[in-house]
């Protein structure tokens, strides 16, 4: 049996076979032989998760648009599929032309969350690509990775040949060209990696030596050859209006997590919340123009037939002409019966007007993210939201006919005390009472307030990158306090066991040595860790022990100012001084203004022509 026949046979036995079969609208297979460069885009999670991801759609379109390059997709199979594949001896195949990963010239992983790392190892091995970079030979693909987690690439240094740091749109093509050149000129793998390392925004970990102090902290990181830069500068796309955005995207047959058109209205955020890694990494704020967005919306609607468009960004409410944009989109989409939704509303920017307009189309539940329960703690994290703001927006929503509100918080934030947790209960109670203040005949029936608390994970390139995460015991105790505080009628409380957050904290700020732990955990069978039914915390802890490393060193340790952090040789544009200054301010509960009110000197102001707000202040 050939691979295709094996696959067809297996498909009869697995759950959710359409995950693996392809043939979706807008995924027409390009001729393999007509394209000299073959790129395998790998999403290290299931099809349903991967097909909801905007980055996949951007890069898929961008690579396939070039006549010389072709992009096909790979996803992480579910456990039943993996078993069948082993039994039949079937490698991991691309969705489109059903070729094994080892047939591709470049294999690129997107790193969205740390707990997908074991899936990368699994996908490489199933795809017939040596898991360790050092084991790869001249005919093996070059394995690359990008996405937010690439800013601390170190835990994956053993497995990934080259990382792309920052916005991918420009560097993707440059990287592919270098790899194509290697193929055409017959350059060796080592030569190719050195050439890649010369590209701005590309980091090749094997070209660096890392030394450690006896206590496990880093002593030094040293480039090994002239091509390897001492500091790898992240890529920034300055003008989104002339940056590639797909006008056709694949339309899955089955329902995926976000099954709609996603219109990225802007990138970045001006608010500077101190816990938020995305808020730091995607600086500065860059907007797409209204004309461009409307043009894209119309093209995408025609190409997909989707019934829903969501405006996507870190903080859509901050888009400078949001009401106009919504009004214009609604006007044009009305006859086509397309609804518009705003996924990440922020409570201090929700305009009553746009609330009313979305309501015409769809009354989904409203989401607010106060993140912390008291004003003091919100000041610590620089979440510029007051209780009055929140209650006013909630009141507007209830008066506008909403009955369902979701509130998101974090537990385990730096300086948090039980009083802050009690504050979450108080806030939830006040939200409930706002509902009852609306006269009975003017409010929608059946109030639903959902409070979710996630465990804080300190991330690189944030002011909390030096902070300790609370221990598992402490988090569990705090969750008990929260359960008690949220025992309020009309309120549902959601939380998660802290084990996954603990591991996430290890890998988020991990160093190169964690590669051994990851490899060991994978050998013990850890995969699909992001899914509670497959997550095996004990096996992970065993892996740490067997590798002689202490997870608490990574998760629960306070770092000193002068410590060399594993990601210090990656230049995000944000300076360490700025982050340290923000950390000190947070300890005194001092807030930092929104960049729209003036530049705060995060470091990006040094890069001329990159940040519009910084440049505006310069004149």
């Amino acid at each position, binding site marked *: 049996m050939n691979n295709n026949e094996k696959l067809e*046979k297996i498909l009869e036995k697995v759950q959710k076979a359409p995950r693996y*079969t*392809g*043939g979706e609208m807008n*995924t027409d297979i390009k001729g393999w032989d007509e394209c000299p460069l073959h790129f395998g885009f790998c999403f290290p999670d299931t099809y349903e998760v991967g097909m909801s991801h905007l980055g996949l759609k951007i890069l898929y379109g961008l690579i396939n648009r070039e006549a010389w390059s072709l992009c096909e997709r790979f996803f992480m199979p579910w456990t039943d599929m993996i078993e069948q594949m082993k039994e039949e001896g079937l490698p991991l195949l691309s969705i489109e032309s059903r070729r094994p990963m080892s047939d591709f010239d470049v294999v690129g992983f997107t790193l969205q969350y740390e707990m997908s790392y074991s899936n990368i190892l699994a996908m490489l091995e199933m795809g017939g690509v040596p898991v360790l970079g050092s084991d790869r030979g001249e005919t093996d693909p070059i394995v690359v990775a990008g996405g937010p987690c690439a800013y601390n690439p170190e835990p994956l240094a053993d497995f990934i040949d080259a990382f792309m740091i920052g916005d991918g749109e420009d560097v993707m093509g440059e990287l592919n060209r270098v790899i194509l050149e290697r193929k055409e000129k017959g350059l060796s793998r080592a030569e190719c990696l050195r050439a890649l390392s010369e590209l701005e925004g590309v980091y090749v970990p094997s070209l660096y030596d890392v030394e450690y102090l006896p206590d496990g902290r880093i002593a030094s990181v040293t480039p090994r050859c002239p091509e390897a830069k001492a500091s790898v500068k992240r890529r920034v796309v300055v003008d989104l209006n002339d940056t590639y955005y797909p006008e056709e995207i694949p339309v899955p*047959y*089955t329902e995926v997590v976000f099954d709609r058109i996603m219109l990225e209205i802007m990138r970045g955020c001006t608010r500077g919340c101190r816990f938020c890694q995305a808020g730091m990494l995607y600086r500065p704020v860059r907007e797409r123009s209204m004309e461009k967005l409307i043009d894209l919306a119309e093209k995408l609607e*025609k190409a*997909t*037939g989707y019934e829903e468009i969501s405006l996507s960004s870190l903080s859509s409410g901050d888009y400078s002409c949001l009401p106009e944009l919504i009004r214009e989109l609604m006007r044009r989409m009305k006859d086509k019966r397309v609804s518009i939704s705003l996924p990440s509303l922020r409570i201090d920017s929700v305009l009553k007007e746009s609330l009313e307009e979305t309501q015409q189309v769809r009354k989904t539940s409203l989401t607010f993210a106060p993140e912390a329960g008291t004003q003091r703690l919100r000041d610590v994290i620089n979440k510029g939201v007051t209780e009055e703001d929140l209650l006013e927006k909630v009141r507007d929503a209830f008066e506008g006919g909403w009955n369902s509100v979701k509130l998101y918080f974090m537990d385990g934030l730096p300086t948090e005390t039980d009083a802050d947790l009690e504050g979450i209960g108080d806030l939830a109670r006040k939200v409930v009472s706002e509902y009852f203040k609306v006269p009975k005949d003017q409010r929608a029936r059946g109030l639903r307030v959902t409070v979710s608390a996630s465990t804080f994970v300190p991330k690189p390139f944030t002011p909390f990158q030096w902070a300790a995460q609370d221990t598992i015991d402490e988090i569990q105790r705090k969750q008990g306090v929260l359960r008690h505080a949220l025992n309020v009628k009309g309120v549902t409380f959601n939380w998660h066991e802290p084990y996954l957050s603990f591991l996430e904290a290890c890998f988020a700020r991990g160093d190169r040595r964690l590669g051994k732990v990851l490899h060991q955990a994978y050998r013990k069978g850890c995969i699909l860790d992001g899914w509670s039914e497959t997550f095996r915390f004990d096996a992970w802890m065993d892996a740490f022990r067997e590798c002689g490393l202490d997870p608490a060193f990574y998760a629960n340790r306070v770092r000193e100012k002068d410590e060399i952090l594993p990601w210090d040789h990656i230049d995000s544009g944000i300076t360490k001084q700025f982050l340290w200054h923000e950390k000190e301010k947070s300890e005194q509960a001092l807030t930092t203004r929104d960049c729209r009110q003036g530049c705060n000197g995060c470091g990006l102001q040094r890069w001329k022509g990159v940040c519009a707000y910084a440049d505006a202040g310069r004149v």
Partner: protein
Amino acid sequence: MRMLAVFEKSERIRHIGHLDIQRAVQRGLRRSGLPVAYSQGFNPHILVTFASALSTGACGKREIMDVTMAEDVSAAEFIERMNRAMPGEMQISEARAVDGKHPSLPGLLRAARYDLLIRDPAQAEKLISAIPSMMARKTVPAMRKTKTAMKETDIRPLILSIRGEGHHIQATLTLTEREACKPGMLMEALAREAGIQEEIRVLARREALLGQDEDGRMIPLEQL
């Protein structure tokens, strides 16, 4: 005006369920920009129905959709625009415009013709040689899945024709709103007849949906 369009559900996408096929057609119609009619009400959807739901796992050569149009269009234009708007796995081969009073397709449906490819050659041979003895029986019981339970049915009168050739079995089986012999039921009975206990891997392809003309002849449903 309504458009009856014959489309394929290819082998590649045979594991897609009927609800997802319906949604793919809805989206295809939206992409095509054809003047289709929408339902009234809060959540309007395109008025399109299907002659028969095809089971998950089966592919279909000549499935039929029935689209209510808001304005008249020619069959040729319908095909041309839809084929640009539909994935390669679901192309339209024929279309025919009928007026609004044309009876509904599920009501006209009488039978379906299937091609069943038996993956294992040895099994195929055994199964095919069991056809005559099975057909000679007065009753042939098979289990039918209803909404709530499994029910025993006599499928003998529902097998309108059957023959085997190579690794294929071709069968015309009754398919109406009230009674149906699904390919799986036929295979179950035939496996029993052939004394095969192991699982049989079959690729079921529905080749045509049939109705009855005035003279009682079975003809393709879309031609009625």
